[in-house]
């Protein structure tokens, strides 16, 4: 385990892991975003930022193959995910862990069964081993003792965390989190940030996070893309710290400073 840790940290920032080329996203004839171009490196914690309704969740659906691009391509290393055959894609999907915005736990299964199902399907572990691993993953997100609860019997924030445990079940290479900290209290969301950093360091996973939370963005992210609903494309990509320090785009600055700068400018005007 310590060995893999160093190997993982050595790999951080090395090879490109996810490459998006000229991606256009559309619902029917309604084009949401066009010409998205960015690269996520192995071991990155990559944040998708932007205002509400600009298409962050939709971009995530494209990255995991739930929606086909209207144009453009998505690569995982040199594997063309967009043009791949369904069975090749399915193999790729097993290396992903996904947390949906609504949690999306399977409502007819207990938490342990939710976390255990991927293990049951894709490994040769015995039921006891599966149960043990499921308990471990639930404990990691602070849900020790809730193994036999059904999703409807726990709170919204707890469902989010259980969804996270399920996403981590197969020790994936790439983790996708859609607003992981929405609905969590400030302390839990701090812990979640630490967990995300821990996952990257221990598993060497590449992590893609959709989030609005500035505190979280500056704690975890080392790479990002900024989507703008108005111009319907990305207006910045790179390390958010750098963006804050050097970006001259008022829209990026406004977002990263919570609009404080813009208000300040207005006040000094009036």
């Amino acid at each position: 385990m310590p060995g893999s840790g160093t190997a993982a940290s050595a790999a951080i920032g090395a090879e490109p892991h996810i490459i998006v080329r000229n991606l256009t996203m559309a619902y029917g004839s309604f084009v949401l975003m066009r010409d998205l171009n960015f690269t996520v490196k192995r071991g990155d914690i990559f944040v998708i930022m932007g205002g509400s309704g600009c298409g962050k969740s939709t971009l995530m659906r494209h990255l995991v193959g739930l929606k086909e691009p209207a144009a453009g391509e998505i690569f995982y290393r040199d594997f063309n995910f967009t043009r791949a055959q369904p069975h090749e894609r399915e193999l790729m999907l097993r290396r992903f862990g996904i947390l949906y915005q609504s949690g999306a736990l399977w409502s007819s299964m207990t938490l342990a069964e939710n976390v255990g199902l991927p293990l049951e399907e894709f490994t040769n572990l015995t039921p006891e081993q599966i149960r043990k691993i499921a308990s471990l993953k639930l404990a990691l997100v602070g849900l020790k003792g809730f193994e036999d609860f059904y999703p409807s019997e726990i709170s919204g924030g707890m469902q989010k965390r259980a969804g996270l445990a399920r996403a981590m079940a197969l020790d994936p290479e790439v983790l996708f989190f859609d607003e992981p900290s929405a609905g969590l209290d400030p302390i839990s969301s701090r812990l979640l940030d630490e967990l995300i950093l821990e996952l990257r360091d221990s598993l060497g996973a590449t992590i893609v996070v959709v989030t609005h939370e500035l505190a979280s963005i500056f704690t975890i992210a080392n790479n990002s893309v900024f989507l703008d609903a108005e111009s319907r494309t990305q207006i910045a990509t790179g390390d958010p710290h750098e963006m804050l320090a050097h970006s001259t785009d008022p829209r990026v600055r406004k977002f990263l400073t919570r609009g404080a700068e813009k208000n300040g400018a207005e006040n000094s005007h009036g």
Partner: protein
Amino acid sequence: MSMTQSQLRQGSIALDRSDSTLRLRLNGHWHLSRDLPAASSVIAELFKQPAPRVVSFDTSGLSGWDSGLISFLLEVESACRERGIKDDREGLPAGIRRLIELAEAVPEKEGTRAAARRASILERVGDRVLAYSVGMADFLTFLGDLSIAMFKFVRGKARYRTFDFMETVQQSGPEAVGIVSLIAFLVGVILAFMGAVQLQQFGASIYVADLVGIGMVRDMGAMMTAIIMSGRTGAAFAAKLGTMKVTQEIDAFTTMGISPLEFLVLPRVMALILMMPLLCLFADLVGILGGAFVGITMLDLSFSTYMRETISTFTFVNFIGGLAKGTTYGALIGLAGCLRGFQCGNSSSAVGDAATQAVVMSIVMVVAACGAFAVAFNILRI
């Protein structure tokens, strides 16, 4: 209290035109619960020649307001913008000004309202036809995928949870027995009554047994069971899968590399295919008992004569036919329920629509299949 109520004046508006300025004097109580003046009268004034250059407001006579006034003002403002007329908000109370600014803070996203545009009739007919052909293609794809999955099921290679399968068997089998017996018994009674009225005139009331027996076994048993199961189980499938779609649970299966078709649809359709023939047989039996009840109580037949007559009328082939129908109807109901559930949109009302459409679709398909069976059996002389 009633004094002040009557003193509160209804919201009203007076227009003052002094060369290039149009002054709107707002008076009284502007509440939604009262009849408010329409913005159109003011807007008409804006379009008169020569057009005013500035619109200003005087609210000294205004005694109360709510969203009714805000929406009125927004309408006026948007007309002003359209005409390039300046609006001077100085005269408005600060609260109203802030709400208007808030409402205008986020510009409408172009393209989002495209759907609201009214299309010409040709375009709509075309859209409908295209939608039907896409729907048909979806149906065939689903059917194809399901056939492949069933093939896997038969070879024992499909991935699903036995618990799901057993639960659906329980729901669509034993738990449906009560309602199916009730309806089948009543249908048996109705058939017997219908026959009895005519047959009694010829003193041939014993043939009621034949009528009920053949009627139930050949058609009514399977048909009534199918209709009950469409409403009961087909709708439940659609609602359950639709809800899973809304909560992204189905996406979660797909992205995990687990086929939702094998995992969710297969156990449900297979459970119905297994349970429907059994339910149909049971319904046949209960229907015959219903007929016997009428025969014994009204026609003075004995139970054993009635049963002997019933048994003598139909052959083994009748039974097989009834079973084949039950199986087919089960598959159709499962298919319709699951398909509509999968096609469900992303809201709770879409789940309701999916359930309704599933029931309609399965009943239509069952009746159509019944017709097809009648023709086929006729050709085969069964």
